[in-house]
Every structure is written in C-alpha cells, then in structure tokens.
C-alpha cells in the first residue's frame, strides 16, 4: 500500500519515481544502478534534500525492471547529471503535495509552514508524513517543472553524508548478487569454448564437436549437462561438484583460426578494416603543417586492459510458470531484459530482472553474460540455478577495455602558437553483445563496429587548423567500454603531444596550455592545480636526479566528454604528477599526485573525493602495469598473477583540490579524474629523464628500453604460448583412448606353480592385537596409495603406474574371492610379497616392491595377511593389458629376480642399537622407501651402494635423496626427519606433496616410536657435512631480500600469483607455505620437475591440519609457470646452473598429470 506515488509515463507505460507509504517511509526509484561508487547514497541525499528528511530515512531501489524506470545503462557518469533529474523533481513535487495537505489541515497558506526532518510545523500544530497521509491514496503524474530547491537552500546536498550501505557491507549482512540464495537452488558451471574472449567469426557457435557425457556419469551431484550449439554447462547439487564435473567432462572443440598479432597494436590496428568518420575539419591543416616552424608526427598506443572486477560475475535465475526471474549484477537491467527475451524467445513482460550490487565493474564485464547462462540452465532443469563464473572465465571472457591507437601530426606557427593538429584515433570496440546470444547462435557473430572512439577526441585547446577523425572498428577480441572509455587514450595522446610541442617551443608546458585555453573555468582549474601542486616552471625537461634515481613533475588536463558525439561534458580534471624513475631497473614510482577537479555542484563532497582517489589508484595501475596478453587464439591471462594490479605499496601521496561551484549544475565525477592520468605520468617521466613514453604500460622493461634508446619490448616478455589450454585437452583425450591399448598387466606368463584357491578365512580368526599390528604394517607400506585408483573405491586397485617399460595397474587388495585376494592362502600371499610371484604362478613386475617386502618379518607378514583378509570385500576388475618387450617375455622376470633380488627377511645389525634397527627395518622393509627414493638402473632395478636412497623420480615428481646427499641448502637432521614424517612438514624443508602426501597420511597409524626410529636410521645415512651450512635465519633473510628486490616481469608474476603465501610480510597467514621457498630442495634440484609439479598440482593439506597450496594448472599457462620456475631458480639458488627448456618441461608435466 502506498499513500503517495509520483509517476511518469515511460517507454513501456507508467513508471514509479517516488513512493511514500502510510508509515511515512520514502522510497525513491532510479533506473541507474550503484556500480560500487556510492551513487545510492548520493541519490538518497537528493530525495532527502527536497523532502527535508535525514538521508538515512530514504530508501533507494535501483535498477529493478519490474519496479524502476527504464533510464538506459548506467554509463559515462550520467547518473547524477541526468538520471537523477526526474527523481529530484518527483521529490520536490511530493513536498508540495505534503505541504498542501498540511495547509488544508492547519488552515493556513502553505507558505506559512516549515518542513524540517520529516515534520511539518504550522500555526496550528505539527504533523509528520504518516499523519498527513493517513487514509490518503494519491497518485500524481510527475510535473517535470516542479520547483526544486536552489543551492542556497540546500541542507543535505553539498554536505558529506555517510554511505548507507557500508554498515551492512562491513558486517556481512549486505546481499550482493553473489549472496542471493533461493530454496532448491542448484549450481551451474559453464564450459566455454577455446576462442576465449572472441565474438566474431564463423566459428562462433560452431566449435563444439563432441561431449562425452559418460566421462562424468559416475561423479556425485550431477543433475544435467546442457548443450546448445557452443553453449555448454553442467548443473549439480553443490557448487564444488559442478566445477569438478565440468573439469572432468571430456569435450572436443574445434580450434579457431589464429588471431592477428595483438602484441603489435599499431600495426594491427592500422591494418584492419575501419570506417573513417570525420569529427571536425576546420582551417587548412595541411597548409598550416607545411608552413609550421616545428612539425611533429607521433603515434601513441594503449593496450587492451581488463575491467578486472574483484568478484567474478554471478547470477541466479528461476523459471517457473512461464515467468523468468533473474537476480543480476548488471549495469543495464532493461537492456539485459531485451537480450534475455531474445535468447529465451519470451516476451519481455514475462521477465523480471532484480538488480543487486556486485563487485565494482567500471564498465561492461561478464555480469550480463552470466544471466544468459543462468536463464538457460534454470529452464533446462526446472529449478533455480546459480551460476558463478570462475576467475579464469571472467578474465578470459570479459569484454576488455579496447586497445587504441592515436596517430597525430601537429605544428607550431611562427609565433610559437599551436597552429595545426591532425588527430586520428582507432578504437576496436563495441557494446559487448551478450555471450549466450552468440554461443547459442541467437545472433549472428558478425563484426559489429560502434561509435565510441570519439570521446574527448576533440582537444580542449584553441587550434586554428584542426582535423579530428575516428576510425570506427569492430572489436578484434570482445571489447567494450571501460572507465574513461576512449577519452582516456585520446587524452593520453592530446596531453602528451601538447607537452612535446611545448618542449619544442622551449616554453613551460602549463603556460603553453593556458595560452591556448579560452574558458575561464578551465583556466582557473589548470592554474590552481599547478599552483597547489608546487609546479616548477621550465623550458624543457629538468632532468633532476640523484644516484640511480631521476625525479620529475608532469602536468595534464582534460574535460571528459561522454555520450554520442559531440557529447556532453562531465567534470573536468587536471593532474600534477611527480615520479621517481630508477634508471638502472626502469621502475617508475608515482610519488605524489595532486588532482584538481571542477565538478560543479557536489552532492556529496566525500563521495566525490573518494571517486577521485579511486580514479587515481586505478589509473596508475592501468598506466604503469596493465596490459592483456594474448596467445595465438585467445586471451592468455587467467589470474591476477598474469594480470597484476597496483598494490598498497604502489600508492602515491594523493591530494585533491575540489573547486567549489555550488551554483553550477552537478557534473559526473565517476571517471573524470582518470582521464589526464597517463599523460601526466608520461610527461613527468620526460621531465625526469628526457625520454618520451608513448606506449602503455610503462613497465620497468619498457622504461629501461626507452632509456637505452632500444625498441619497446612487448608487454609480455616471454613468447606467447601457442594453443596451450586446448592442446592439453586434445592430449588428454588422446591419452584416454590410447590408455586402453597401452595398459600393461601386472601378471606375466606363468613360470612357477599355481597355489590353489583357498576358502576365505573365517571371520574372527585373528585377535584384535594381530589385526592392529597388521594395520600398522599396512600403513607403514602405505598399500592404499598404490592400490586405490584416482577417484576410485579404496584398495580395489586399478591405479595406473607408469614405468619405463609401460604402464601397469595395481591389483584389488580387498578379499573379494574373484577379483581380489579372497581366494589367496597365506602361503600364496607370502610368496607374492617376498618373491613377486602371483598366486597363479605369474611373475609380478617390480613396480610392486616385493624386493623390499621380502624383508618383512614372518610375524608382521602374518598380521598383514590377517588385516587384509579382515577388510570388506569389494568386487572390482582391474584392466588387463600388455607390457612392452622384453619384460613380457617368458623368463625375463625370473632372470631379473636372480640378478636383483634376495628374498630374505631383515637381519638386524648388531653394531647398531635397537632404535636404529627398528628404523632400518621399517625403511627398508614394509616402508619400501627405496622404491621411489633410489634411482633405478636401465633394467628398472633400484641401484644400490652409494646410490641407495640417493633420490629418484616418481610420476614426474622428484623423490629427493634420503641419504643426506640432497640438493637443499639445509641438512636433514634427525629432528627434521621426525617432523616431516610425523606432521608432513619440517620447518627447515617444507611440506610433503605429490605422491609423498598420502604416505605421510598413512604413517599417522604408526606410533611415535616407529617414526623416531625411521628418523634415526635415515639421519645416520648422511655423510658428515663438508662445510658449515648457513643458518636457516640467514638463508631466509637473504632469500627474502632477493625476492623483494627483483623487478623483472617474472618477479611481478610471482608476487601477484604466489606472494600472499610466499611473501607474506608482517601478516602471519595460515597457509601451506610454512617454510621459505629457498629451503625447498625442489628449487635447488638438478631438474625442475619437482617444482613444476608442485606449481601445477599444488600441495595437499598436511594431515595434522593446515592449509593446502592450490594447483595452478588451470590458471597459469606453460610459459608463465616456466617464468616462475626460472625466476625462483635464478633468485633462490643463484649458485646453481639455470634450468633450460622450462616451457617444454611444463608442457610435458601437464600432459602426464593424473
């Protein structure tokens, strides 16, 4: 029920702008949404102002298609400037209505009444809104001419008002779109095609070749696999299940054609088709250029950049009774509704979009795409579905901020005036069509140019001969508006170029600008910014410096012009930037920024200042570090390591000068302060070094190259990897097919007598003590690790074990009479364990470590047998197969055994104590440590003597030496060994990972005395140290210093991808990285395999609790993992030979990943 409604006629019928309910609660409705900039607070302030209410008493509903007006997309900082206008009028009109009601009630003219804090006071008394509206039901059409307050009357607007959303956001009670949960909701996970980030070309919507649904049929939680052309997704009960299923699903895609060389922005943008649109052509540019005293031709380029929302896009959809509801983080609820109607072939009226806040997006991210995904899935399964994109998907698919190229010529006239300017800009971008429409073929994937390259293309200066053209181009990769749109790059060119001209003219750059400005407001902004920033007048670069460092100041100015050409001006801003350039490393630090801004009336000055700060930090990040990289077919950056953002330590000192103009209309402030950023920084670098940076980003490598006069290196130093992700997919598929043929058998032709089947032993035959002992032997041998397949039923075998002679599969250990050990008598079992002969007389391949098990004592062997026979039987066939010759030849294994095997139980060494002997028994017997930790000879036998326990490899992982000859910088003491075997980690060496992790988990069954005994024995194997080793503290400190001071691209990648755990700083983070990486033997090993495997697959949580390290295989390309490995080797093992062929090693490791 509402007591008072102000409405207007919108595009599709009446639209409510303001409501007051009988309790007096005021709700404002606005079609624009809060993109995280605090606009909700500012709009509430506007309503509160007109109604003389405390701002906290106004509620705002933003961007809900069923409830709010259609005011187009929230872009270009237009909310306050335009979208708020009808809202303000509605509030003013409501005020007039309330006053009229009060006047009637108190019998006095409205003019005699005062309204303050929601209470009307007149001659006869007071009344609040609820009292005035009692029993009323007023619906009034908007009077756009309703009298609004003059600035002099403002009490709320123009003052800072606390953000209404922060108490909820700071305590977890705010509902972002990510937090929408519906009853019965399922989770969808999309699988995107290999053409990541592309939106035109005939392959779009036609690349999905095959989906092997059977490959995931066994996985828990699966509800549906939904496929429509190139749209593919799985729906599952749980979010994690959906991801697991999606990752396991075998899919075949066609590979798209290659992209043009996007590392070469200038060449590629000039070559591609475009339509030239002349924006202005006055005077005679060519004539003026030919007579110019000084003539310059320059090109400036801007890279593709990510919007980089911190929260990947998410949506929830419900399809019920022919109606579709979507909970969305969209920027454009009404536009989205049109897209969804088209996708679903439904009328728009049957669709409601409920807009919730999401992570700040600063333009078009995947928020709309994911709504299409959720809608399709909700309809397919008939239950509400939530789709959360992964970080990788958001990075790959968000329509990027487009690259841009500005080709400029200009000249100075006789009197040193800026007399001629010829400016051409290329901006391959459009509005980012909804991805679901493209993938399902609902719209044609044809190249769609747009007209947004013209923002601030006209320079703000008085130039007599001026020609400005924009080349409208379709995107090459998905691209759409990003904060500052094309104005930011265009201004980078204008403001760098005018600085270049000033330097040519030998004139101060600020004075030179002022000489060409007519507008008094602009002139004042420029002057005040320079003054307050401590501008030092100059006639050329000042080249100040000290030691390695050069210091400079730079200035730039812009009015951000948005909307369709010629557009509308938002706030104008000027930057004075100070930089320090390290001439040796090329690092640029922005040390101080002063931003002056003229935004007309400021609704909420604190809000304006926060926007300004946000623009400074974001644009310094964009200027100094950000550029999307591409491989041959798609976007290549999938995580924050590959695409780093500025961090707290990069912050300059920021000051702002907000020029007060309460009499002027409010201007948009969301983007303006970004626009002069890059040029101001480039101009400061010029002042410091005399070198012009004309290509973003200004990374250390590029600045170093510019200082050396060398050509600009590409944004990514390593060569782009070719077809990495999908090459891997293809490889996995191939392996899956080949696996069936290749799989080797454990058994070989019979050579010895079969031991007859026996009836399974009776339950209860063995004492509890025997079973407990057997359980310990079982744990010491970690039988479960090899005898359980990946994702399979425990102990039923089937795990593929790769050997130099083929792949063998482990057997079913459970006492199932047909497929397991149920029909095995004790003698058959003991023979297999000690001699490697199966019950039926076949030889077992020594991947089964009978050479070690032979040492198990008779008592332990019997207990082990008892324990195994007490397990629940499970029927499970193990795949048959063949070994490659000669191991499958009759007799070979017998000969092998004769050479390499003695089947005698362990005999204690009388010269050693009982603890040592116990340790030796466990290590060399049931523990069979040498199986992995000794190198093998050409015939697959463990090498002995000095090579015993000297390190081996297993499944691509390095099994480090256990005899004290390992490569790590710190020796393994008895205490270290104990910690590691007991807890899975040692403070001086690191944590167990890969195949060692389950071993540690199994050892948890063993008593402390056994773990100590193993540590004692292993420690005794180490030779006496040749030289005193560094202390752990010194080593850690040196390593930390080396990591912190490195500046190459790999260092940035490492910091961003690995730093939270491996460079924790003052924060004690509960992470798997409990030990400095410099201690890890993987960094010091001869081969990089161990390190590479750890990065690809991660490190599991240790059994005693603690975190795990995630595997980075899905996020980082081969080239990037290679970069990290190479960086760690260089930095943490500086004395050792660099690893070579790293990218290939990563590719190999990835292909063999299980």
């Amino acid at each position, binding site marked *: 029920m509402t007591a008072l409604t102000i409405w207007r006629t919108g595009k599709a019928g009446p639209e409510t702008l303001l409501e007051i309910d009988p309790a007096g609660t005021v709700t404002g409705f606005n079609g624009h949404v809060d993109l*995280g*900039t*605090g606009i909700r607070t500012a709009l509430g302030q506007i309503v509160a102002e007109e109604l003389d209410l405390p701002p906290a008493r106004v509620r705002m509903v933003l961007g809900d298609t069923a409830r709010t007006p259609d005011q187009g997309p929230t872009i270009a900082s237009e909310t306050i400037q335009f979208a708020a206008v009808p809202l303000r009028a509605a509030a003013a009109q409501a005020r007039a209505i309330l006053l009229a009601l009060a006047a009637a009630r108190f019998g006095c003219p409205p003019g005699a009444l005062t309204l303050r804090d929601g209470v009307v006071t007149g001659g006869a008394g007071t009344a609040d809104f609820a009292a005035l509206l009692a029993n009323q039901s007023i619906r009034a059409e908007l009077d756009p001419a309703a009298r609004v307050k003059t600035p002099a009357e403002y009490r709320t607007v123009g003052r800072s008002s606390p*953000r209404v959303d*922060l*108490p*909820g*956001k*700071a*305590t*977890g009670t*705010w509902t*972002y779109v990510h937090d929408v*949960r519906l009853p019965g909701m399922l989770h969808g996970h999309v699988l995107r095609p290999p053409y990541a980030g592309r939106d035109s070309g005939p392959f779009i919507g036609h690349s999905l070749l095959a989906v092997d649904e059977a490959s995931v049929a066994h996985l828990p939680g699966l509800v549906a696999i939904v496929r429509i052309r190139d749209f593919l997704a799985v729906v599952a009960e*749980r979010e994690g299940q959906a991801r697991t299923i999606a990752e396991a699903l075998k899919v075949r895609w066609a590979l798209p054609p290659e992209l043009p060389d996007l590392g070469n922005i200038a060449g590629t943008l000039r070559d591609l088709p475009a339509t030239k649109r002349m924006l202005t052509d006055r005077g005679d540019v060519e004539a003026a250029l030919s007579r110019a005293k000084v003539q310059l031709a320059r090109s400036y380029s801007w890279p593709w950049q990510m919007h*980089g929302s*911190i*929260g990947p896009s998410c949506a929830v959809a419900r399809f019920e009774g022919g109606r579709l509801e979507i909970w969305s983080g969209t920027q454009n609820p009404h536009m989205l509704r049109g897209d969804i109607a088209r996708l679903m072939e439904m009328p728009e009226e049957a669709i409601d979009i409920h807009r919730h*806040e999401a*992570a*700040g997006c*600063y333009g078009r991210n995947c928020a709309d795409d994911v709504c299409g995904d959720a809608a399709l899935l909700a309809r397919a399964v008939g239950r509400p579905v939530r789709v*959360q994109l*992964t*970080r990788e998907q958001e990075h790959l698919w968000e329509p990027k901020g487009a690259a841009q190229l500005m080709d400029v010529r200009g000249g100075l006239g006789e009197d040193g005036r800026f007399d001629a300017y010829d400016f051409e800009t290329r901006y391959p971008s459009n509005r980012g069509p909804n991805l679901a429409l493209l993938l399902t073929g609902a719209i044609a994937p044809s190249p769609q140019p747009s007209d947004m390259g013209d923002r601030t293309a006209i320079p703000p200066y008085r130039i007599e001969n001026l020609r400005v053209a924009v080349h409208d181009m379709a995107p090459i990769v998905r691209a759409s508006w990003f904060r500052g749109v094309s104005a930011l790059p265009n201004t980078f060119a204008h403001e760098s170029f005018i600085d270049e001209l000033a330097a040519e003219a030998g004139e101060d750059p600020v004075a030179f600008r002022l000489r060409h400005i007519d507008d008094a407001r602009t002139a004042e902004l420029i002057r005040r910014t320079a003054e307050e920033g401590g501008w030092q007048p100059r006639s050329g670069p000042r080249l100040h410096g000290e030691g390695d460092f050069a210091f400079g100041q730079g200035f730039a100015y812009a009015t951000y012009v948005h909307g369709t050409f010629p557009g509308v001006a938002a706030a104008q801003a000027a930057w004075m930037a100070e930089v320090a350039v390290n001439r040796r490393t090329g690092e640029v630090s922005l040390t101080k920024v002063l931003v002056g801004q003229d935004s007309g009336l400021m609704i909420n000055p*604190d809000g304006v200042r*926060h926007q300004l*700060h*946000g623009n400074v*930090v*974001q644009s310094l*990040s964009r200027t100094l570090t950000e550029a999307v990289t591409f491989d041959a077919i798609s976007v290549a950056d999938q*995580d*924050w*390591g590959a695409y780093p953002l*500025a*961090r*707290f*330590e990069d*912050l300059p000192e920021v000051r702002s000068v907000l020029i007060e103009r309460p009499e002027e209309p409010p201007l948009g402030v969301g983007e303006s302060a970004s626009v002069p950023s890059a040029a101001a920084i480039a101009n400061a670098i010029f002042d410091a070094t005399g070198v012009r940076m004309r290509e973003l980003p200004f990374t250390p490598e590029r600045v170093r190259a510019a200082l050396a006069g060398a050509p600009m290196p590409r944004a990514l130093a390593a060569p782009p990897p070719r077809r990495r992700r999908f090459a891997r997919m293809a490889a996995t598929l191939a392996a899956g097919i080949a696996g069936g043929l290749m799989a080797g058998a454990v058994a070989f032709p019979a050579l010895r007598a079969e031991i007859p089947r026996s009836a399974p032993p009776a339950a209860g035959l063995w004492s509890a003590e025997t079973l407990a002992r057997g359980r310990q032997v079982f744990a010491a041998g970690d039988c479960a690790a090899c005898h359980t397949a990946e994702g399979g039923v425990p102990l039923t075998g089937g795990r593929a074990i790769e050997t130099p002679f083929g792949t063998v599969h482990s057997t079913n250990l459970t006492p199932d009479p047909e497929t397991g050990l149920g029909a095995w008598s004790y003698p058959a079992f003991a023979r297999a364990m000690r001699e490697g002969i199966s019950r039926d007389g076949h030889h077992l391949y020594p991947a089964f470590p009978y050479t070690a098990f032979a040492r198990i004592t008779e008592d332990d062997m019997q207990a082990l047998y008892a324990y195994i026979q007490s397990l629940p039987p499970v029927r499970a066939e193990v795949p048959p197969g063949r070994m490659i010759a000669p191991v499958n030849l009759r007799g070979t294994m017998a000969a092998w055994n004769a050479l390499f095997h003695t089947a005698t139980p362990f005999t204690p060494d009388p010269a050693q104590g009982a603890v040592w002997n116990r340790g030796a028994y466990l290590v060399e017997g049931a523990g069979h440590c040498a199986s992995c930790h000794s190198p093998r000879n050409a015939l697959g036998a463990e090498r002995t003597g000095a090579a015993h326990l000297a390190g081996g490899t297993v499944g691509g992982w390095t099994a480090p030496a256990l005899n004290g000859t390992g490569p790590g910088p710190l020796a393994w003491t008895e205490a270290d060994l104990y910690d590691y075997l007991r807890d899975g980690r040692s403070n001086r060496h690191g944590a167990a990972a890969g195949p060692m992790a389950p071993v540690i988990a199994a050892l948890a069954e063993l008593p402390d005395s056994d773990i100590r005994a193993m540590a004692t024995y292993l420690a005794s194997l180490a030779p006496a140290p040749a030289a005193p080793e560094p202390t752990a503290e010194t080593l850690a400190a040196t390593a930390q210093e080396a990591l912190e001071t490195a500046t190459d691209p790999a260092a940035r990648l490492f910091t*961003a*991808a690995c*730093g*939270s*755990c491996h460079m*924790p*700083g*003052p*924060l*004690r*983070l*509960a*992470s798997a990285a409990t030990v400095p990486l410099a201690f890890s033997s993987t960094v010091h090993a001869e081969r990089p395999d161990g390190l590479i495997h750890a990065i690809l697959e991660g490190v599991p*949580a240790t059994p005693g*609790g603690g*975190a*795990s390290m*995630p595997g*980075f295989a899905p*996020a980082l390309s081969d080239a990037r993992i290679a970069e990290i490995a190479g960086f760690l080797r260089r930095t943490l093992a500086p004395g050792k030979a660099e690893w070579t062929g790293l990218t290939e090693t990563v590719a190999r490791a990835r292909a063999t990943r299980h």
Partner: protein
Amino acid sequence: MTIRLAVNGQDHAFDLPPQTSLLEVLRNDLGLNGPKYGCGYGECGACSVLVDGQAARACVMTLGAVAGRQVTTLEGLGTPEAPHPVQRAFIEEEGAQCGYCLNGMIVTVTALLRDTPAPDRATLARALRHNLCRCGTHLEILRAAERAVTLMAEARK
C-alpha cells in the same frame, strides 16, 4: 566422514569430503556472506577468514584442514548495531567503494592487530599488499586501518 569445526562460536558437523573447499562450506552450507569468492588461488584476499585467530584464505583451505578448529568470519566479528572496532573504523572512514574486497581488508587488519597491536602505516600497507581492490579504495582503506589501530587500542583499555 564427519568433520567438526566451530564457526563464529557455533559447533557444526559436516558429512562432506575433507577436500571440500572451506569457502564453499561457509558460503553455501552455512549461508555466510562475509567471505567472498574472488580468485580461488589465494591471490586476492576476498575470501579471508580467521582460523584460530590467524588470517587464512578460505578458497585454498579445505574443510579437512580446519577440522576441530575455530573459524571466524566477518559476521563473527560484529553486527551493524555492534560492530567490531575494526569494522567500525572501516564504516567511519568509508573504507570501501563497491565493498567486495572489504571482507578481506577487515579480516586481514583484525588478524594483524592481534599479533602487532601498534603497526605504522607502512606495516599496514605491507600486511595488506596481497589484498586486491579494483576500485582503488586503497587510500581510504589505509586510513581506516590506521583508525582501527586507535579504536582497538581504546577497546583494549
């Protein structure tokens, strides 16, 4: 296998595989909004929680790893009516634009102040260096963190 842990002071038991992500359990099984999914690789900090008072990234924590431990989320620190001093500092200094990173900032500062009660600005910046914010709210966040130091000191008195 049943895994028990305490979240915001309440005991819970889950019959889930130990490798289930802690973030998923907190958000989807317990319906908590504080910890956010941002990257899944420990790179951004959006998912931060406290485990036995220590900062942790829930996206790279497994349920098994927190068995028997105390997990505290943003919700467990305070409420809009009675915010924790660090939350209060962030509200008062407006240390957020969109606020998606806010959980991580508050949790990280809370954890830091437990070990280091009087950090200077540089230490705060270094402690927050692996918390990403796209909105560029860094200046307000640092100011909020500095205020949090003061408010916590007062609260301890």
